[in-house]
């Protein structure tokens, strides 16, 4: 029990004492930094935040924060978060994972979470590779990337465009950040948490081990050109021209969030009486 009102919680106080397993230089470090910074900015009580993930290097992130967490199975973080938020609407629920977790095995949940619009904040660490299973192509990998032994000729499919899919499926808040700019990312996370309904923060997040070229590439290419729009058509238009490296908040819609359960209005006894003959 907190008997005295705590002083301001610093970002560090949202970090756990568990040492990350990530490779030195992995972009995921800057994502946990941005998230803890965002939580500190919002001064959310630790116990009222829950952080859900699937499986992958990036999905290890909940354990490194000092809030409640659920590290589930591969691809299923969004449904876990959905159930939690609907059962406990007063909690702030964050979801994190990789591009493989979210767009491949969890692709169906991604689309339907955008549609359902439960008040969740989904941070995807996109490194265009499966880090944890040692470097296979992911849905966002370029079709001619020959760096994986599983697809020596390249995946041969155009990369998945998560923001276009999210917008088409009905996501209400869409933004992109890079791991090189944790401050910008923290700002987006703060706005995403504040936004009612489903929000997607897409993070260009280098895997220094299996895509070492990404670190420099993201730095060189990223350009902060998006100012938030509330017009879907405008957002769609921008995405059509997007080179994949534009950052900022793209779109903020006003679709109402999926509702929590209503107040009880009957008793069990009344309900059972209806079976009587």
């Amino acid at each position: 029990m907190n008997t005295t009102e705590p002083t301001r919680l610093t970002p560090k106080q949202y970090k756990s004492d568990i040492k990350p397993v990530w490779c030195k230089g992995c972009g995921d470090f800057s994502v946990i930094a941005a998230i803890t910074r965002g939580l500190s900015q919002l001064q959310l009580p630790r116990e009222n935040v829950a952080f859900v993930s699937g499986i992958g290097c990036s999905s290890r992130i909940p354990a490194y924060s000092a809030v409640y967490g659920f590290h589930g199975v591969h691809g299923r973080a969004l449904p876990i978060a959905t159930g939690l938020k609907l059962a406990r609407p007063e909690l702030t629920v964050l979801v994190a994972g990789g591009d493989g977790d979210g767009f491949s095995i969890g692709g169906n949940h991604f689309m339907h979470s955008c549609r359902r619009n439960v008040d969740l904040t989904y941070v995807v660490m996109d490194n265009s590779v499966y880090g944890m299973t040692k470097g296979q192509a992911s849905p966002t990998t370029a079709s001619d990337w020959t760096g994986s032994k599983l697809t020596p000729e390249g995946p041969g499919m155009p990369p998945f465009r998560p923001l276009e899919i999210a917008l088409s499926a009905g996501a209400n808040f869409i933004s992109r950040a890079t791991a090189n700019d944790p401050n910008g990312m923290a700002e987006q996370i703060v706005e995403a948490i504040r936004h009612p309904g489903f929000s997607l923060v897409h993070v260009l997040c280098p895997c220094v081990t299996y895509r070492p070229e990404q670190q420099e590439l993201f730095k060189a290419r990223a350009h902060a050109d998006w100012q938030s729009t509330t017009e879907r058509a405008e957002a769609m238009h921008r995405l059509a021209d997007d080179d994949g490296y534009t950052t900022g908040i793209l779109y903020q819609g006003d679709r109402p969030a999926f509702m929590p359960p209503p107040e009880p209005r009957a008793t069990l006894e009344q309900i059972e009486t209806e079976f009587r003959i």
Partner: protein
Amino acid sequence: MDSTSISIALSGSGGTGVMTAGSLLLDVAARAGYYGLMTRTLGPQIRGGEAAALMRLGVAEVTGPDDTYHVLLALDWGNIERFAAEIPLNAESIVISDPAHGPVPEVIASTGARLVEIPLGALAATVANGRPNMVALGVLTALLGLNLEHTTAVVAAELADRDDETLAASLGAVQAGFSAADPCVCPVTLAPPARAAGTPRWALSGNEATGAGALRGGVRFVAAYPITPATDILEYLAVHLPRLGGALVQAEDELASINMILGSSFGGTPSLTATSGPGLALMTESIGLGIAAEVPVVICNVMRGGPSTGIPTKSEQSDLNIAIHGVHGDAPHVVTAPTSISDCVFTTQWSVHLAECLQVPVITLSDQAMGQARTVIDAPAIVPLNGQRKLATTTVEHYERYEVTADGISPMALPGTPGLEYTADGLEHSPRGTPSTQAAHHQEQLDKRQRKLLQFDYGPFWADIAGDGDIAILTWGSVTGAAMEAAERLRKGGVAVKVIAMRLLSPALPDRLADALVGVDRVLVVEQSHSQQFLHYLRGHFALPARTRTHARPGPVSIRPAEIMAAVDDLFQEA
């Protein structure tokens, strides 16, 4: 001859209204104080095709099918050959058919049943907008000696929200059938009902009973994906959960539904999903997550014929293997099964109780024969079982979510509790929840998860046991009704038979069964699966007498008391 039960099959093509007529007849009998059971049999198609309402009315609760049908009333003969096997008839039976639909098909004629022709269609045509199924209801009212006023009242209640002409048409057709029933004489007459005064009675389906049990257990969050024959559980809960402040979400698939309930339960809300075989197969990975992360959830699996899409509309007990063994790794969890429709209420409530007390997923195995049957029963007694989770509520320096305790149950902190923040994990973990690959952590967590199930006191609920004798029938699930009836008849014939119907299928409690088998030297295992799944499970975990035999066969034809009696008889004859 006065009988304690009478069995009637109403058949016809889909759309002829046999299910409506059957369920109205059940209500009419209920008004007269009788009990009853109506099972639906449908072809693989969802609409159209063949359909039959298989009814058994009784002076007391009816928990299973009889050996043969006394009456088959055929509205037409559409595809009767496809399901004639489910409607056994003999020379005592009568078949009522409309001559306009042609001669009695050979599969029915060959049973030797007596034919009575009633022009159902022509009688219906004497009333504006009259329908043959309502004529059939009138015929059956007269044939069974039921009260026409009851039928009128039941039809009026059914059509309360329709216009006067529709009601007049239905009542006219019922009257026409009632008057035309004279030429049939029923092979048996039903004895007066044996109702205990004052006990309220319920009319409901097995799936509704499961829904009611879930509500009694305290379930307030459900996520699921529709699948036959489990969907009616969801339809019931979708209406009633919000009235209790709970919620039902239609998920995008079963992978989502099981994970949604893991999330809601992690948040502290007792949660449930319902599915059938294919859905259970999709859920197994995440059931393992619930086991490792120690999150209570209930999965109601309403079994149908498998594998694959199998026979979605008909019953079988062949998901036992996947329910017990389907999850990868060493994955102790609970598997339960209701022993009757009425028991769907208790077993579901108990399953929620066990899940909450033990922080573990519980799979409960109902089946189509129970789930989609409609029954009239005495209102199930209220049982005070509402498992409370062992919660962690006070701040400690290093909270251990997966603390290794003597009873194996570790106090669980709910989000919102200050100072106890932790991460639930499906990865193997230390007591604090930190991912760990250490042998010692794995060993102690596996031990702990198994120990909590084995040390729990399941009370007398692990099985329903009836009778005594040196022969025992060992069974489970919806086959229990037929087994109990077989034993009862054998007892009347002077053969003492004990029935043990297991409600707790897993974890295995060999000592409990050993106690129940004291004095038993011959066992007949009865189940509705092709590969004898129950027998093999028992053999792996329990000590059975050397003289253990099996009566196992697949669905969808119901296992009947006479075949169980014959199997017991064989066992009895053995040297």
